[in-house]
């Protein structure tokens, strides 16, 4: 077996881990709660290790797509030609970073779910299926499997939120599921049309990408179906005005699901825009990107403004996610390499940062059973470590230099100013608003007069939560201080995309 083949198996086994975890837990009796947790932790750690390995093993300067593995699934049957559908996995620089993100967030979410006591068996099965869907989407280089895993990541959410959620969970779960699957409907229609238009008799993404670039998929078709993919994926990336599931869904979701959902799942949407929009339909992208820029900017400003007016922790984070994903969409819409690189960095940065924020909110809510800002005050006195972690997340959110948010947003702003100076100005305005809502929260909740109601009722974060938080904080700091490993990998791939300017 050559080195490259062996690398392919690493990718395959990373995808297999969460499914294996779900399968093993399926056969553990529901009453053996500790066994279920240890199995989950074991696999989470393994996945974290594999993800870090995949990220570091990605060769800067090598082929754009590395660690490939391809198994024919269905071929030479009916409308499918050779390699019609194959389990074709591999990573490029963008996927490498996203895989790292998934590993970190899934690990942290597992630790946080340790104290979950209501039907942990069902919870972890669904949770690992969700994670498998996320990994699969990042790895897949076959349109059929890409969509397969994309849908797979959405399926378990209804039950995860509906059963284990809190505030208005049924409403939130139903709204979220319907909106996300509604987005998939558009993708599905787009897939049928593009497969038909390309006429290659294969779902292989690399061949389809080539067909999109050399005009086999004609210009008009590209223009018509680009919005299908971008709006379809955009729903998951909280593209304004299709973002409304995000605040409700996040408010309802249990902590670990919020973490994975805001941390990783929303990135699937932006990732889909890269894979199916920019890479598959470059001419459609060229035509429609100004539109995406407008919507992204509205999302960034609107999300930040809405977060200013909210009083519920989770709603603030929900809207702040809309705002940050707005930056991601802006970065993608610039169609220049620094902007898109920034967008991908922001996907990572927002992922770890939001996961940390939801972790902290969960730690507080589990004890206080309220998330209203006005119920708190002077929390720093009773939960010092909690405040430290939350502050770091908040500052990354605002874009403080030295943390990941700065690196990402800086790239995006530079990219935006290059092509759309006006929108660049608006983006910076949104960042200023972010400082507004974060600092307001700091002053009201963390400091200020201590609310005696919480005396002896709030305890600081548990060691497990501490470990989870440190993993997230570490990745934020590394990316903020030494971003070369991140930017090199991403821009290595981004500069090779068709239609992307210097």
């Amino acid at each position, binding site marked *: 077996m050559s080195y490259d083949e062996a690398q392919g198996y690493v990718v395959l086994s990373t995808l297999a881990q969460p499914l294996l975890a779900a399968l093993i837990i399926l056969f553990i009796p529901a009453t053996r709660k500790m066994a279920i947790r240890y199995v989950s932790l074991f696999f989470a750690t393994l996945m974290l290790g594999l993800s870090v390995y995949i990220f570091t093993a990605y060769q800067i300067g090598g082929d754009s797509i590395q660690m490939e593995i391809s198994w024919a699934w269905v071929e030479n049957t009916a409308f499918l030609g050779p390699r019609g559908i194959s389990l074709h996995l591999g990573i490029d620089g963008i996927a490498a970073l996203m895989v790292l993100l998934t590993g970190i967030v899934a690990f942290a979410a597992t630790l946080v779910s340790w104290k979950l006591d209501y039907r942990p068996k069902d919870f972890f099965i669904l949770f690992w299926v969700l994670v498998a869907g996320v990994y699969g989407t990042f790895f897949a280089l076959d349109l059929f499997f890409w969509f397969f895993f994309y849908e797979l990541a959405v*399926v378990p959410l209804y039950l995860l939120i509906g059963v284990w959620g809190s505030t208005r969970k049924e409403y939130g779960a139903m709204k979220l599921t319907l909106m996300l699957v509604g987005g998939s*409907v558009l993708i599905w229609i787009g897939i049928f049309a593009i497969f038909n238009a390309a006429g290659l008799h294969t779902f292989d993404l690399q061949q389809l990408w080539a067909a999109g670039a050399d005009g086999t998929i004609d210009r008009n078709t590209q223009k018509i179906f680009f919005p299908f993919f971008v709006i379809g994926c955009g729903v998951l990336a909280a593209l304004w005005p299709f973002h409304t599931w995000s605040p409700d869904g996040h408010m309802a979701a249990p902590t670990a699901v919020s973490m994975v959902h805001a941390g990783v799942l929303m990135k699937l949407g932006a990732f889909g825009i890269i894979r199916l929009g920019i890479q598959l339909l470059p001419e459609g992208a060229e035509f429609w990107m100004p539109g995406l820029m407008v919507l992204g900017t509205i999302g960034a400003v609107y999300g930040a403004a809405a977060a200013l007016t909210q009083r519920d922790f989770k709603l603030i984070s929900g809207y702040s996610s809309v705002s940050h994903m707005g930056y991601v969409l802006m970065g993608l819409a610039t169609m220049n390499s620094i902007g898109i690189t920034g967008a991908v960095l922001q996907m990572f940065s927002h992922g770890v940062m939001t996961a940390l924020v939801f972790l902290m909110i969960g730690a507080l809510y589990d004890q206080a059973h309220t998330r209203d800002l006005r119920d708190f005050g002077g929390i720093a006195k009773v939960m010092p470590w909690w405040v430290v972690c939350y502050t770091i997340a908040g500052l990354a959110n605002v874009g403080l230099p030295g943390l990941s948010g700065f690196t990402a947003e800086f790239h995006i702003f530079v990219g935006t100013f290059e092509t759309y100076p006006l929108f660049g100005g608006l983006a910076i305005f949104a960042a200023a608003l972010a400082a507004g809502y974060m600092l307001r929260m700091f002053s009201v909740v963390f400091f200020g007069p201590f609310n005696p109601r919480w005396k002896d009722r709030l305890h600081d974060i548990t060691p497990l939560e501490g470990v989870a938080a440190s993993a997230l904080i570490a990745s934020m700091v590394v990316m903020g201080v030494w971003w070369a490993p991140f930017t090199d990998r991403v821009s290595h791939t981004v500069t090779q995309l068709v239609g992307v300017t210097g």
Partner: protein
Amino acid sequence: MDSRPYWIFIPEYIAAGSAVAIVALELIFPKMRRELLGYMTAVAGIAWAIAAAFYVGHDDRTYQGLLQVDNFTTYFRFLAAGIITVTGLLSATYMKDKAKTASEYYGLLLTAGLGMVLMAASRELITAYISLELLSFSLYILVGYLKKDALSSEASLKYILLGAFSSAMLLYGISLIYGVTQSTHYDGIAQALAARDSGTTPAVVVGFMLIIAGVGFKVAAVPFHMWSPDAYEGAPLPITAFLSTLSKAAGFALFLRLFTTAIVVDAVEWRWAIALLAAITMVLGNVLAIQQKNLKRLIAYSSIGQVGYMLVVIAAIGYGDQEIGRNASSALLLHIAGYTISTLALFTALTAYYNKTGHDTVEGLRGMAETQPFLALIVTVSLFSFAGLPFFAGFTTKLFMFQASTTDELMWLIGLAVVNSFVSLYYYLMVLRQVYLFDPPAGLARFKLPPLMMGLGGLLMLGVLAIGIYPGPFFEAVEHATQPLYQQGADLIVKNP
């Protein structure tokens, strides 16, 4: 070559013989345990399938040009045998103390299956009609088998009256086609239609429409669906499963054989009607399903929606070239298999649950995840399969079916179908909401399943997963099954522009 090869129907002799034997057995031993008859039916089904296996891949043989045994027929033999085996096993527990006698019930299951196989094998309109009536009459009685239950009797009466009406339409259509083409043989019709001057003849168009209406009634396409929710609700639970799998598969067997060989020549005259029918069927089926409180009615409307998706393929046969027709037909056969297995899995779970709790409403499933997690899992898997979510058969088969049917003219219909499968997810989630989000009603504790039900449900669930995860071999198998439809007279068929 022997023009009357009686031996090609050996599997059917086994089925018919078993039907007679089962009826006779209860006459001779009136005191025998009725479950035994159910198990015997299941055994007969398995024997039927084994006998059918010997016909796979052999040369196509016809009996007098009326009935043809080829891979297509054999595919429906397997389907019929499988459905009867599962229904027989489900009925064994369900019908235990529901009716005084049971032998006719099981005998009729087998004759209904025979009707379906003959519908698939028919290459002549009158034979096809008689086969369809064999299926229909068996079903009329089966639906009304619970004589003391007013709903069951009402359902049966409605079904018979509307069924008779649709038979009349079908017959009128057949006679019109015969009047124009001077033949009732599929080949003869195709030749006559091809030789005819181009140009629309009202008799041909009306004939096609009446045939579509007649078969459309059988598969419960809107607007010929009125009988189906009532029949589903009134029928015994296993018969509801039987209706939603066997009678639909049978209708599509007839559709496929007739439309691909006999009247594809004149596709311009009927394809718009099928596309329209598909659109109305899927929209109305799914929209009406949303407001259903009764689980059987919900499934009735959801299966009407499924018929809408399947009709897309028939429309594609009309709109596309031969290549598209063949691909779409094989994808349809795969979808029918996936849909059948998912439906049977769902009904296995519902029957097992009903046997224990007596509930068959949506509300009645409340807290199922607590009282019987395994059944809850089966319900989830089959409903997600209907909705077309990945890992389950529905995702793959629907994707194949719609992809194979995609032509420029039909893009709107494909889009509509995808939107509809999104609508369907909503009402499936409403069912799962009861299963997972609520506590079980007071007094209902966790219970154990009989091993038979557990094994059957598990097996069917594995089938759903197998098609969903690794569809390759299944897809190749159905491609062989579609082959015979497109070899006959391929040179003859010159499509109108």
